[in-house]
C-alpha cells in the first residue's frame, strides 16, 4: 500500500515546489508579508546582493560575502520574514545601475540603519556627507564626529558598513591619500573612486 501511494518522487516534488515558490513570493509581497526583500544584480564590481525592508535599504553585499550568515542576521535583528522580492529591490537596482552607468552622482534612497551600532551609525552619517567626486580622511571623519583621536576606530567602523557604495565609505582614504583598507577589497575601492573621477585628498581638503 505505502509504495503505491508514492505518487511523485522527491525530485519531482522539489522541481514542482520551486515553480510554485515563484507564485508564492508574489502572493507574499501582495499580502504585505515580506519584511526583508532580498535580490541580486550584476554590476561592474561583481554580483551585488541587496536587502530592503519597509524602512529602506538595509544591506548591500559583495559576491564573496556569506549570504547565509547575513540572512541569519536579518532574521535575528530585522525579521525572519526574509523573502526574495524583485519588487522590493527594484528602486535600489535602478539607482545603482544609473550610478555605475555614470548617470547618477547621489542616491535618493531611504536607508534602514538597524544593522549599524550607534557608533557605526555616527561614523557612516559623517561619511555620507562626503559627496561624489571627493574624498576625506579617517582623521577628518573622526574630527567631524568630535572624536579627533578615534581615527582607528573610524577605520574599523567603516569596515563594518552594511551598505557600501550607497553609504560611500570608499571615499575615506588615508591622510597621505593612500587607499589603505576596504571591506570589499582595494580593487573595488579603486574602481569606485576611478568611476567618480579619481578624486584626491589634496584637491578637496
Amino acid at each position, binding site marked *: *500500500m*505505502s509504495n*503505491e*501511494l*508514492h*505518487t*511523485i518522487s*522527491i525530485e519531482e*516534488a*522539489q522541481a*514542482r*515546489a*520551486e515553480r*510554485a*515558490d515563484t*507564485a*508564492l513570493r508574489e*502572493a*507574499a509581497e501582495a*499580502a504585505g*508579508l515580506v*519584511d*526583508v526583500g*532580498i535580490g541580486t544584480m550584476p554590476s561592474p564590481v561583481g554580483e551585488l546582493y541587496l536587502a530592503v525592508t519597509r524602512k529602506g535599504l538595509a544591506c548591500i553585499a559583495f559576491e564573496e560575502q556569506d549570504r*547565509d550568515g547575513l*540572512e*541569519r542576521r*536579518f*532574521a*535575528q535583528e530585522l*525579521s*525572519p*520574514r*526574509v*523573502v*526574495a522580492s524583485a519588487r522590493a529591490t527594484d528602486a535600489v537596482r535602478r539607482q545603482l545601475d544609473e550610478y555605475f552607468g555614470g548617470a547618477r552622482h547621489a542616491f535618493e534612497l531611504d536607508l534602514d540603519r538597524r544593522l549599524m551600532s550607534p557608533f557605526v551609525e555616527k561614523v557612516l552619517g559623517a561619511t555620507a556627507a562626503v559627496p561624489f567626486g571627493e574624498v576625506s580622511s579617517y582623521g577628518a571623519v573622526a574630527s567631524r564626529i568630535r572624536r579627533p583621536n578615534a581615527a582607528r576606530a573610524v577605520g574599523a567602523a567603516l569596515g563594518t558598513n552594511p551598505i557600501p557604495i550607497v553609504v560611500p565609505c570608499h571615499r575615506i582614504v588615508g591622510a597621505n591619500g593612500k587607499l589603505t583598507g576596504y571591506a570589499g577589497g582595494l580593487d573595488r575601492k579603486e574602481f569606485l573612486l576611478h568611476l567618480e573621477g579619481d578624486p584626491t585628498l589634496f584637491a578637496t581638503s
Partner: protein
Amino acid sequence: MGTRTPPPFERFLSEHGATVMRFLVVAVGSAHADDVYQETFLSALRAYPKVRDDGRLDRWILRIASRTAIDHHRRVAKGPTPTPMPPDRAVHDPEPLDDGLRDAVAALPAKQRIAVVLRHVMDRPYDEIAEVLGSTEVAARANVSAGLKSLRERVG
C-alpha cells in the same frame, strides 16, 4: 537548548517545500496541490515572526499543510452548500485520473485521507498524526485503519 528565532523564511522554504508539495499532491490531488501549497506557506509566513524554532519546524509546517488540506476538502465536499467563502475556482476542474487508487484516495473522508497519507506516504508517527488531526493517538490509528480498509475494498 532553548527555543529561538526561526531561520530566514527563504531557507525554511527551501528546506521544507519539497516535502510539503509531495504530501499535498497525494493529500489534495495534483490539480489542487499548487493552490493549497501557496495557502499553506502564506499561513506559515503570517505566523512566522512569532514562531519559536524548537528544532521541529518540519512538524509545524506539516501541521499547517494538513489543516489547510482538510479545509480544502471541506470546501470542495460542501460544494453546493452556500458558504461565506468565494467558491474554490478549482472545484470543477476535473482531476487527472491516473488510476483506481488515486480515485479511491480522493473518495476518502478528509481526515481519513490526510491520516493515510501522513502515515503511508510521509511515514509520520501516530502521535504526530494525532497532533495534526487534533485527536487522540487512538483516533488517529482508527482513521488510518478505516482509510486503508475502504481503500482495499475499493481497489480490491
